[in-house]
């Protein structure tokens, strides 16, 4: 490849910390979140386990990408990837991604005082954070800005993960040059402004927030000039972490299906011996391995000005393609059982759809890549 394009592509590499986190997270998730726990959590309104949250916090995972000064490990978002991937493998349900991304917004756009106030408590897991970035053309609106920079907020924000459990919502208000970010303390919200949304992924929780002239004090508003870059950073980080979740899920659903194909008989033969099932599963696996290569290249290149963006977009796009195909075939290859709610293939297919929808789907990312490179 000639240099013009190859200089924009992700490069492979792994840090010692990534390798360590990968090992620890793999074991932790496997042990703490067996399939029956993932299933049981679907029925629980809260959608996550506070005890498990505390243990995740104790492992220091909520501060991986936060500075040591704020109680973090001083690493980057690339180091969060192995954890997110292993959580994806077990369909683990927590506000981990939401809280991690909320902290990134604070880190990028918070004043020193705001960072000092919130980041240590997010890093320690004492507080749960989430974020509401809105969609183009459907933003929260600001009214009546006062001298301290406070204002009244009106509008509806959607798909705020774990908002009911969160202490802080990092809220985007307005758009373009007028976009601002604010720390919304959920304790200050009036009753009834949050509504749980029905998601394609039963293992997750997200909420709609409707505000009518809610007063945000100036102290809650982050540095205005930093809002745009902070959102861009969080969106890229979000794409990377949801890609990790999908790569993890793809691994698991292939493994789950291979298990079935090794043991289920039909017409007197193990069904895995039929090429009509074996070969597509191999293709799914190849898609997964490609996605994983893109994922770790993106994790390695995330902070690289030249390469980070294309690498992340490729990772998100390939992860979606691979996970969707693997889970779709998994349903089909489980036959009648695949069509029941009891088969995990369905959980994965639904999660794949959900994850695809967050922080840009494959088509969106491919379009951007085409615009950037060709």
């Amino acid at each position: 490849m000639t240099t013009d394009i190859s200089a924009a592509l992700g490069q492979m590499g792994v840090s010692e910390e990534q390798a360590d986190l990968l090992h620890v997270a793999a074991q932790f998730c496997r042990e703490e979140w067996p399939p029956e726990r993932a299933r049981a959590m679907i029925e629980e309104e809260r959608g996550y386990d506070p005890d498990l949250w505390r243990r995740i916090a104790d492992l220091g995972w909520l501060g991986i990408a936060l500075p040591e000064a704020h109680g973090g490990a001083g690493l980057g978002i690339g180091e969060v990837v192995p954890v997110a991937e292993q959580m994806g493998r077990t369909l683990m349900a927590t506000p981990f991604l939401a809280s991690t991304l909320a902290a990134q917004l604070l880190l990028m756009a918070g004043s020193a005082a705001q960072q000092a106030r919130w980041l240590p408590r997010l890093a320690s897991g004492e507080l749960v954070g989430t974020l509401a970035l809105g969609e183009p053309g459907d933003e929260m609106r600001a009214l009546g800005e006062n001298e301290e920079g406070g204002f009244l907020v009106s509008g509806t924000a959607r798909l705020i993960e774990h908002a009911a459990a969160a202490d802080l919502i990092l809220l985007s208000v307005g758009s373009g040059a007028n976009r601002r970010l604010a720390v919304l303390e959920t304790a200050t919200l009036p009753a009834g402004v949050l509504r749980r949304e029905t998601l394609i992924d039963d293992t997750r929780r997200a909420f709609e927030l409707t505000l009518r002239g809610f007063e945000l004090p100036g102290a809650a508003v982050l540095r205005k000039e930093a809002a745009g870059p902070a959102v861009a950073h969080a969106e890229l980080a979000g794409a990377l972490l949801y890609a990790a979740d999908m790569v993890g899920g793809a691994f698991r659903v292939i493994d789950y299906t291979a298990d079935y194909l090794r043991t289920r008989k039909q017409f007197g033969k193990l069904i895995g011996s039929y090429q009509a099932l074996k070969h597509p599963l191999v293709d799914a696996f190849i898609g997964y391995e490609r996605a994983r290569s893109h994922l770790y290249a993106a994790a390695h290149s995330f902070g690289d000005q030249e390469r980070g963006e294309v690498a992340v977009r490729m990772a998100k796009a390939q992860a979606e393609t691979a996970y969707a195909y693997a889970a779709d075939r998994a349903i089909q290859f489980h036959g009648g059982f695949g069509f029941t709610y009891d088969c995990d293939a369905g959980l994965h297919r639904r999660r794949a759809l959900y994850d695809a929808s967050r922080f840009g789907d494959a088509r969106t990312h491919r379009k951007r890549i085409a615009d950037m490179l060709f």
Partner: protein
Amino acid sequence: MTNTTSATKTESETPEPRDYAAEADAWFAENVPADPGFMLPLTFMEVGEDRQFEFLRAWQRKVYEAGYLGAAWPKDYGGRGLTEAHQKAATRAMRKHRGPILLNAIGLNWAGPLILDIGSEEQKRAYLKPILSAEHIWCQGFSEPEHGSDLGNAQLKAARDGDDYVLNGSKIWTTQGNYADYMILLARTDLAAENKYAGLSFFLSPMTVPGITTRKLKKLTGEYGFTQTFFEDARIGADCLIGGEGNGWKIAMRTLEYERGARGGQAGGYVSIPPDLMEIVDLARSASRDGAPALSDPVLKDRMVGYLMDMHALSLSSERKRIAPLVEDHPMALPLMGKLEFSELYRELSEFALTLLGPKAAYYVGEPNAADDGWWARSYLNAFSATIGGGTSQIQRNIIGEHVLGLPKTR
């Protein structure tokens, strides 16, 4: 419309198909029910709630009583004694005016044609009219938990005991099993038969005898529509047997042919509503991606052209298969391909629709923020019932490869 009208109609002389078509058109224009305020099933396999069941049962009865179902079945058994052409005209009118599906699919397309074809006079008098009027709901007992597609391996036992057969075992994927009054049942009457097929017999079994219980299965979609059906020393009369002991496999294959429309005898109407590409076009016009309509993206537009071509090919092929000079090379090809093509295309198309939604693909049925009330996600997940049920797509490809292209059997 009332029974009186129906009675009047069946007394009248054979109407011209054209007049009958006009009548049907007018009737459906008037009588297709308004949106009931809850989601109606698109296929007979999706009847998951009582209110859906009751609504569709009433609709089928109404269509029957108006004379637009079973038009080609003999008058003596509740039909109107007209021709297939009449019934087709009625079905066309039903489709044109977007009538809901007919509920009693197994009765109308499997059990009914079979009984008409080889049933005894008693069976015809007992069963046919209630099938049309949806008074008797029928279900089908072929698949078993351990032998999904491998019907020849059915293990449910039917042991002769005096004037009865005693049933023991289990069936799965019983559509409307929790509502059904009767089941067409494939069961093993001879454990010592020389080959597995010869030990099978076919029954018209009541579902209401002691020892038969059902358990609703939760589907991939989170909804219901099927049951597992358990038989524990359930006794049915020996007169429930149809076609003679040991002929079960042959009869089961025959019912599949009715179902595929490869033989006549179906009562008419439709039991599922295919996805409509124009609705996807509308979705692509209205769905916002990155602040612009999805349809403004040439890549998505090109994929839409591809689906339009495939959908239209299917509809052209269903006409071509009746034009002898154009199917001489492989007369069975198009009929055998239909199920595979349609079910796979349905799945792909629904999945494609989801890619139009952008962030809204996160939502599901019941969510006010969802596009079209979550219809597309549900449609995609439901699509697997057709790519898996009735012989998986993988098995369909074996059948086509072996029976049309003459390739050696996969062992």
